[in-house]
């Protein structure tokens, strides 16, 4: 009896020895800061004196009254929009073509389309910034196209047009990612089902809508979640590409937070923006899941 008890005790000690290193590091870096961030967002924090004075909702009220905050938030949604209507459908289309083996050299095509995703976002951001600049390939191409050697694109300098290069870069960089996510899931579909439906005389479009699409419902939700959290996380690329400019037209929440915290040194306000980013992503992801479960019930 004693032996069993002591063995049980050892087992739980062993359990904690296995998980503690990971848990401690994780709690120190993720849990503690998230909680601290919420606390700091209700204070004015002085980094030199290391003092925090509680100011209540001040930062949140200021944020709600700030036009740039709303622009940044709207821009985040535009980026989600680019993902959902750009990268995801294009990625899906490419994955489907690869999956049905319609084109040859599939390994080569897949490798090429995915390539940009492995390059550092900072490098990609600066590269495209240069591409659209006066010394850039795209500028020169447009000059040749318009037959005007002085044609300069001011695209990165106009409010609405600023999103065109941005979409190009996002699609260039991340379409391959969605492609492989879709491809991996398409390949999970049992080939026997496809063969059976082909033998039964189902057409390509019937196979697509009746067999393939229903089995991808979960993945489509996942990609939507990835697009939402990816857009809220997206910082490096925009930071290097436009740095929120011109005149804040391409500002997103992450850059807005960065500027207030590390340029203006308003840590309390920065924490408030961080907290809002976490809240929005939690709400959006919960919403996506809710819609999925509702939608799922109807289908079943």
């Amino acid at each position: 009896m004693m032996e069993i008890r002591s063995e049980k005790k050892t087992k739980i000690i062993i359990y904690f020895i296995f998980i503690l290193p990971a848990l401690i590091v994780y709690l120190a870096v993720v849990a503690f800061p998230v909680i601290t961030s919420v606390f700091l967002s209700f204070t004015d924090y002085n980094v030199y004196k290391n003092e925090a004075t509680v100011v209540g909702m001040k930062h949140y009220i200021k944020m709600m009254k700030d036009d740039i905050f709303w622009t940044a938030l709207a821009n985040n949604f535009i980026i989600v929009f680019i993902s959902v209507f750009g990268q995801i459908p294009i990625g899906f289309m490419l994955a489907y073509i690869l999956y049905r083996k319609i084109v040859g050299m599939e390994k080569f095509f897949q490798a090429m389309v995915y390539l940009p995703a492995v390059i550092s976002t900072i490098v990609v951001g600066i590269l495209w910034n240069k591409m659209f600049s006066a010394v850039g390939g795209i500028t020169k191409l447009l000059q040749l196209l318009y037959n005007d050697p002085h044609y300069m694109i001011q695209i990165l300098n106009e409010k609405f047009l600023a999103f065109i290069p941005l979409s190009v870069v996002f699609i260039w960089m991340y379409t391959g990612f969605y492609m492989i996510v879709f491809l991996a899931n398409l390949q999970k579909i049992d080939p026997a089902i496809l063969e059976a439906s082909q033998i039964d005389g189902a057409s390509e479009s019937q196979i697509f809508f009746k067999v393939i699409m229903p089995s991808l419902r979960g993945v489509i939700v996942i990609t939507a979640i990835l697009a939402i959290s990816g857009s809220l996380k997206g910082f490096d690329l925009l930071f290097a590409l436009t740095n929120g400019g011109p005149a804040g037209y391409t500002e997103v929440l992450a850059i807005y937070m960065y500027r207030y915290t590390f340029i203006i040194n308003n840590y309390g306000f920065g924490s408030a923006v961080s907290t809002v980013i976490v809240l929005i992503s939690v709400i959006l992801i919960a919403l996506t899941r809710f819609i999925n479960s509702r939608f799922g019930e109807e289908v079943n």
Partner: protein
Amino acid sequence: MAKTDLQKNLTSIGIKIIFYVIFFTFTILTILPLVWLFYSSFKPKAEIVMNPLALPKNFIITNYIQAWTIGKLGLYTINSLFYTSVSTIVSIVFAMGASFAFAKLRYKITVFFYNLFLMGLLISIHSILVPLFLAETWVHLQDTHLGILIPYIALALPVAIYLGTEYIKGIPDSLIESSRMDGAGYFRIFAEIVFPMCMPVVMTVAILTILGCWNEFILVFILTSSESTRSLPVGIYAFSGPLAIEYGLQFAALVIGAAPMILFYAFFNRQITKGFAAGAIKG
């Protein structure tokens, strides 16, 4: 009948051509900016300004030599290698240990801890940036190598633990029980039986972590202030500052920044795509 077959063949050939065109276009659009960057990096500044699209007339490599020395890219490459290798090894050991405990030494509290780690998949680095920066200044870890390694390890854990736990769950309990009967302790079972069996998932996790750490920018950008702790992406970003008009140097720096991962991708592209597909399916 023959006619419809012919028509079918024709339309399928037509579709095939369209799809080939789509893929070729995509491939070319993907590669062109990189090709342009590559050959431009061998041009003197004047040529870049005068004729952005042309191939180099005076093929020079001084851009690279200057970028490497002025930008201290050698030092930053060593730092990047250090951060990436240490974070990858340590996070794998930590994550696999925890995964083993979660999958095989089941306790009720596992659900809580496991979900705690899974929540980390949704947390973005920016939401912890401010307090992390402050916490590191409080404990004097700011601008140290350790101050970068700790968050790198922590941020690699959620996906590693998720993939690791799911994988170890697939290892039969009987294997562990029979080793227990033979008198092996849990540490020996983990080190000699479970961990070697996890090599496929360890490879996946290693690749995800290597890519993530090597390309990471904002943490090092915020948490470091001296050259001795900076990594390659931050070093390359520095060329966008006062040096930004030295296009040749900047292009060379960008190539130096992009090349290691492109090479890595050339060798491991199957594992990388497989790894990202697996890592993404966490919803």
